[in-house]
């Protein structure tokens, strides 16, 4: 309180007529109240009477509303879909990639990566702050975890590119190019990995339906080179006796999604086209078979297989609040809540009659997750409220327009971004019950996680 300017004189108050002040009377008043006021100030400073006390003035059930509807005119002209979203390190900038997720064919159609700074005054929802031209559909994006302008993208062609959004002239700074190491199928997910030895260095991870998970490092000449990698092969999947499947030889297992454990950086979960999820480790030594033609030998990372969905798994998400819990979602419209300790899911929920394209745990509410459905909805699920139906169902688009991707803003957790097949990127503001952790929420989560029967 010592930083306030002290304006003690009447003249500073712009009064229409000066109020005469009886100083003797004023002093007498102040001397009379000083003690009681100071006593109350001190008591207040030390008091815990109001700790955790909250008042709800507003009915909070469904005040989820759309803050922005963002689109890119070039992408709209080509009728492209939003394929991926990423928030930057500061939480002010949202980026999305455009492409197609419903085409079965290879596509050389050019596409775009666009960014908007939502905290800027001149925000134009129909004109992104930055539009980057890309020669092939971009399937996935990830902003750097601490450098707000670096963003990596994975392409339909199998390439991985890194852009610096602060460079208006030519933002592309690193690329894998098309080498023997490059993925031979679309890249469905990219991530930044902190180098365990040098914490300010980051490597890039890419995941593809060619069955490979590759780790790249940046080189001075703008080239991304392969450091290490993993390959998933059907005969190396560690099925438990209960789930033994007929192996079809050395078939590659198409990986569609990956999520690292928030508690153990060597543990990750992957979702595959075969309809199941796998617990993997970066600390494996087993070589993958067959020996592929890549410059670095690839390893077989799978340690445990979970029981399958009724169709390909498109998304997996590890809980930020419990080391054993993760979610998986897929084309069967079901979400599975899994514990890493057993093959059968703890809970299986049907959220959609069509596909589920993305599931994400809330970064602040341990019992909450969001799911993007093929029926144009973003569903917010709260295990604390119901284990049967969503707490809130947000209609993003028509029932024929799928929502493909959702991302929570970790710096501003009331914001949830969702991209759909009509090319719209919508920023939803969540009601306050989705932002603050409830008093016994962690206990409830522990209980859920302990329902392991194996």
């Amino acid at each position: 309180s010592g930083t306030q300017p002290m304006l003690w004189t009447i003249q500073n108050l712009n009064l229409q007529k000066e109020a005469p002040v009886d100083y003797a009377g004023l002093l007498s008043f102040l001397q009379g109240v000083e003690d009681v006021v100071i006593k109350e100030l001190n008591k207040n400073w030390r008091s815990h009477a109001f700790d955790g006390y909250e008042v709800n003035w507003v009915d909070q059930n469904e005040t989820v509303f759309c803050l922005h509807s963002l689109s890119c005119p070039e992408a709209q002209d080509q009728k492209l879909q939003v394929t991926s979203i990423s928030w930057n390190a500061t939480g002010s900038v949202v980026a999305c990639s455009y492409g197609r997720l419903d085409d079965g064919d290879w596509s050389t159609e050019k596409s775009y990566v666009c960014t908007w700074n939502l905290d800027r005054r001149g925000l134009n929802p129909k004109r992104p702050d930055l539009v980057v031209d890309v020669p092939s559909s971009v399937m996935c994006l990830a902003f750097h975890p601490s450098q707000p302008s670096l963003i990596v993208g994975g392409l339909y062609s199998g390439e991985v590119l890194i852009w610096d959004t602060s460079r208006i002239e030519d933002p592309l700074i690193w690329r894998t190019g098309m080498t023997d190491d490059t993925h031979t199928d679309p890249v469905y997910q990219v991530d930044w990995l902190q180098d365990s030895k040098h914490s300010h260095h980051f490597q890039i991870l890419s995941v593809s339906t060619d069955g490979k998970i590759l780790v790249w490092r940046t080189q001075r000449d703008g080239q991304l080179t392969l450091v290490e990698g993993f390959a998933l092969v059907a005969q190396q999947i560690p099925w438990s006796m209960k789930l033994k499947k007929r192996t079809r030889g050395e078939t590659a297992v198409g990986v569609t999604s990956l999520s690292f454990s928030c508690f153990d950086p060597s543990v990750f979960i992957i979702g595959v086209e075969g309809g199941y999820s796998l617990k993997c480790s970066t600390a494996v030594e087993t070589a993958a078979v067959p020996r592929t033609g890549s410059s670095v030998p690839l390893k077989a990372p799978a340690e445990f297989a979970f029981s399958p969905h009724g169709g390909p798994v498109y998304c997996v998400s590890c809980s930020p609040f419990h080391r054993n819990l993760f979610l998986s979602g897929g084309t069967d419209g079901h979400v599975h809540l899994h514990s890493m300790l057993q093959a059968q899911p703890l809970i299986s929920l049907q959220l959609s009659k069509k596909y589920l394209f993305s599931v994400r745990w809330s970064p602040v509410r341990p019992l909450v997750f969001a799911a993007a459905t093929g029926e144009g909805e973003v569903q917010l699920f709260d295990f604390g409220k119901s284990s049967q139906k969503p707490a809130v169902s947000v209609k993003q688009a028509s029932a024929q327009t799928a929502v493909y991707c959702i991302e929570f803003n970790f710096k501003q957790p009331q914001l949830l971004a969702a991209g759909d097949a009509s090319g719209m990127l919508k920023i939803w503001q969540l009601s306050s019950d989705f932002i603050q952790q409830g008093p016994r929420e962690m206990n409830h989560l522990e209980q859920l996680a302990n329902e392991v029967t194996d």
Partner: protein
Amino acid sequence: MAEVEETLKRIQAHKGVIGTIVVNAEGIPIRTTLDNSTTVQYAGLLHQLTMKARSTVRDIDPQNDLTFLRIRSKKHEIMVAPDKEYLLIVIQNPCE
């Protein structure tokens, strides 16, 4: 005059105090540590509220009278020490 300023400085210096305002019987601010527009707003609104609070107390029991008013909001606490001639308003952001 100096003693008035000293007293107000002592109050303003307490932990968490954001602002201190003295208002006269007509609701006009005569001392403040905040900017003009904020001061005028607080003075007018709290003068009215204090009068209402006082009449509430006296309507319930004519032998009783208002001695102190505290308003707790999400962001801070407003304290009003009332008197026949003046009001002292102190705004504090208490330690959470």
